[in-house]
């Protein structure tokens, strides 16, 4: 196969950058930044190449690499992509690239460590999306904790330590149960190989327990409603890049995990629990939406809005029909782009004024017009205005959920309205009204900020106006996954 090794190249290429950064003297931060940027750029180009070569008529795993890793327990270094994961890989590399750009001036201390952590994050994120061996998956999944723990804890805001420890312990706690379930699966079937595990049958009792083990890990990451409390704290205190990674990729891992593992491996349990999860999703949508209304902190508001949006994603996934799942995957990518961009925007003004309080701002539209325009686009995309990508995703999800359960959709649609309310109200409070003293004479947008925001705008309109190519990638794989579910 001609493309053998492409996935490994994408996965491990940042190691070169890491090595180069390690040997660079820390007194030359600009060199470090340039190295990191070039590494991320090349990695992104490689992942675009992957997208280009990907054959979306084929529902099987492509670019498969399988090398024995731990013989004793029959575990493999097993990589592959299908329609579900292929879009996330370029998204991860893109987010890393943009994070490097957006932090160009805002990270001033411990520059070396910061870019090391970012590149390491990139490896772990891509690894999670690529690995088809459960143990390998778990290793990457947990390894992601280390750099995120550091990114939030070192470069974050005033209450960063509380948030980062909360983040670490919550996610660590969640994944422990997944580990137990993985070990059980291995002992039952003697393999960690995802492709071999599909279609195995269990007794209902066991299947439910295993499902819950996996679900807990994913639910903490997504985060679903009762487990969401780490997210606002972590988002609020993280540095801009950290928030963008959290919103853009990290919480997508949960949704990805659900589509990848829960549905195909435990179809019966999925059916059994689907109703419960739908209810939880709707609770998340409405609860988080309402919570947004009384936030006075910009980042916290956006963090709660992502809880709400991820509620849509789980709603879509557990509507268990192709439309809903396609919508959910697309919405995950949309949410990564839009919320990531919103966090970048907040980072932009935070760097200038060092305040995240909504009351602090007012009338930015007159003093900072270009920024206001960009923010408007992201706000509208977040609400889901037709023509932006948010509309496509939410529409598909609601349509899918309608086919599953009509009552849910009514509640979820309320969530859309609440979403419009809080985002527009936020926009009104920050950009209109009378300008306050703190927002005059803000320095204009820098090149790195423009460079990182423009691609997001382009993607929003690209997906919003012409979503078909993106949906084509996932269609066949999604229907294959659903084939198991009666």
């Amino acid at each position, binding site marked *: 196969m001609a493309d053998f090794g492409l996935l490994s190249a994408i996965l491990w290429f940042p190691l070169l950058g890491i090595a180069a950064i390690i040997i660079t003297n*820390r007194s030359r931060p600009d060199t470090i930044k340039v190295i990191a940027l070039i590494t991320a750029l090349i990695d992104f180009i490689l992942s675009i190449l992957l997208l280009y070569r990907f054959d979306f008529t084929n529902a099987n795993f492509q670019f498969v690499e399988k090398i024995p*890793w*731990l*013989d*004793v*327990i029959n575990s493999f270094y097993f990589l592959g992509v299908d329609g579900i994961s292929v879009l996330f890989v370029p998204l991860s590399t893109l987010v890393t690239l943009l994070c490097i750009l957006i932090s160009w001036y805002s990270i001033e*201390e*411990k520059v*070396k*460590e910061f870019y090391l952590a970012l590149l390491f994050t990139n490896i772990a994120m891509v690894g999670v999306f690529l690995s088809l061996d459960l*143990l390998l998956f*778990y*290793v*990457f999944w*947990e*390894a992601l*904790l*280390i750099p995120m*723990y*550091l990114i939030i*804890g*070192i470069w974050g805001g005033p209450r*960063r*330590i509380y948030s*980062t*420890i909360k983040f*670490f*312990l919550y996610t*660590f*706690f969640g994944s*422990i*149960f997944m*580990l*137990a379930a993985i*070990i*059980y699966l*291995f*002992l039952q079937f003697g393999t960690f190989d995802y492709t071999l595990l599909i279609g195995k049958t269990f007794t209902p009792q066991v299947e439910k327990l295993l499902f819950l083990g996996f679900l807990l890990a994913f639910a903490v990451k997504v985060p679903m409603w009762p487990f969401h409390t780490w997210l606002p704290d972590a988002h609020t205190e993280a540095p801009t890049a950290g928030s963008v990674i959290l919103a853009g990729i990290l919480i997508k891992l949960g949704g990805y995990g659900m589509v990848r593992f829960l549905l195909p491996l435990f179809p019966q349990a999925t059916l059994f629990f689907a109703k419960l999860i739908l209810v939880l999703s709707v609770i998340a949508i409405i609860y988080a939406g309402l919570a947004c209304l009384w936030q006075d902190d910009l980042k916290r508001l956006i963090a709660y809005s992502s809880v709400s949006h991820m509620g849509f994603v789980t709603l879509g996934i557990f509507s268990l029909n192709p439309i809903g799942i396609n919508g959910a995957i697309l919405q995950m990518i949309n949410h990564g782009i839009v919320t990531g961009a919103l966090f970048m925007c907040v980072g932009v003004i935070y760097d200038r004024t060092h305040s995240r309080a909504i009351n602090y701002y007012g009338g930015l539209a007159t003093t900072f017009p270009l920024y206001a325009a960009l923010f408007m686009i992201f706000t509208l995309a977040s609400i889901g205005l037709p023509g932006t990508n948010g509309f496509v995703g939410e529409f598909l999800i609601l349509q899918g959920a309608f086919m599953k359960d009509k009552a849910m959709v009514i509640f979820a649609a309320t969530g859309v309205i609440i979403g419009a309310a809080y985002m527009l109200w936020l926009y009104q409070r920050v950009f209109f009204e009378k300008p306050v003293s703190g927002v005059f004479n803000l320095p204009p947008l820098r090149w790195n900020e423009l460079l990182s925001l423009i691609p997001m705008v382009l993607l929003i309109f690209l997906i919003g106006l012409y979503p078909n190519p993106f949906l084509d990638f996932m269609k066949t794989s999604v229907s294959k996954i659903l084939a198991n579910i009666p």
Partner: protein
Amino acid sequence: MVTLSLNFGSLALELFFLLSGIFIFMIDRFIKSKSYAFWLSFWVILGSMVFILFIPFGDFTRAFRIDFFSSSIKFLLLIGFFFVLLLSDTHLNNFPGLNFGEFYGLLFFSLFGIFVVLSSQDFLTLFIGLELMSIPLYFLIATQYVYRKESLEGALKYFIAGALSGGLYILFLGIVYYATGTIYFEEVSKRLAQGLLKKELLLGAVFFISALSIKLSLVPFHMWAPDAYEASPLPITAFLSGLIKFAVMAVLIKVLILAYSPLKIEIGKILIPISLLTILIGSLLAIRQDNLVRLLAYSSIAHVGYAVLGLVSGDFAGYGFSLFYMFVYLFTTIGSFGIMIYLVRANRGFLEIPNLAGICQNLPFISLLLLIFLFSLAGVPPTAGFMAKFYIFLMLVKSQYIGVAILALLVSVIGAYPYIRVIKVIYMDKGHLGYYKPTYPIFLAFSLIVATFIVILLGIYPRPMLDFIQRTLFLYISLQFLQL
């Protein structure tokens, strides 16, 4: 009359150690130069690492046997000991008043004791070996008593614990002798295989495990560990928590295989509550420690608890995983104590965790290494700590101890907290403590890099090491059962 083999060839390595220990010890008075003792021990250890590959297998009387298992474990221990020597050299340069030769000499005696323990074929030799292993340590812990008052207290506590362990061990010896009339592993095993005396020997095993659990600092007998660790010089602490525990674990496994294999399931059941409590108490008490050494002491308590979990199922593969766990822990210990030796050179106050605040600014390299080791101790991939824990849990679930596995997993979340707290202090707090930036002595840098390399390598690709340990064990077991 049994003919006895007086095969001095198989005793060669031990004799070599003994003689070089005595030589290094005795010569100390007559040589002014301080570094000769280190170089001598350095070459002795390097030499014996080669030497051990050529030692013929065989018996010396019925008490002492060189076989594949003991030689492999000895080889691993020699590697560990080599690094302890390197650390000692770095650390002892802070104490020009000390007699280095005597220090290294006593270390050699302790290693000699460990080797005897590993090769012993009966319970009496095992006991004498254990004493020989511990007695030099009582003195070594107290090395710094001129400078630090606590060191005598630590030594005394360890001594009292050790003496209690001795008492319990002799009680066990009495029960075994009383019940079977023999003290040889194989004979005990034969009696057990005939289905006789299970109850009596199980009672003996309780005392045996109590005696060894004092050396391993398992829970009802863990009190001495933090004090002794804090009191002793840092290389000795590394020796205590890395090498000694590795060796004692190996011996426990050996006895379980050789003497107690018909009872291994019952013994496993005794070990379950002990190890769970050990993990729980070690993890909980580690939370409120402010001293790095004490933190690592409690963490070593908890880690041995995890390693013991590999023994509960009575499955031989689990024994291999326990040994693997201890091996990983050995190198994590060497790395973390190496880092502490470096920190102490910068400022003694660095052993208190709050003082570590913000050292990543000025000591970025050492902070990064500490980060790796702490994550390994917490069991986060891609470090070796995760792989070691993973295999233990795998074993537990495989042998249907699912409840135990879940409990241990839950406690491991608590156990992660102390380490991430230290990382928090290092990377996220602002610090004010003054210090100068010491250079990296070549040996310290070497051992740190090797330990880091091993911890990461075993986290990513543990297969060769695991294969080595498992094959050793299986070969040993199959030979053993062919004999019987």
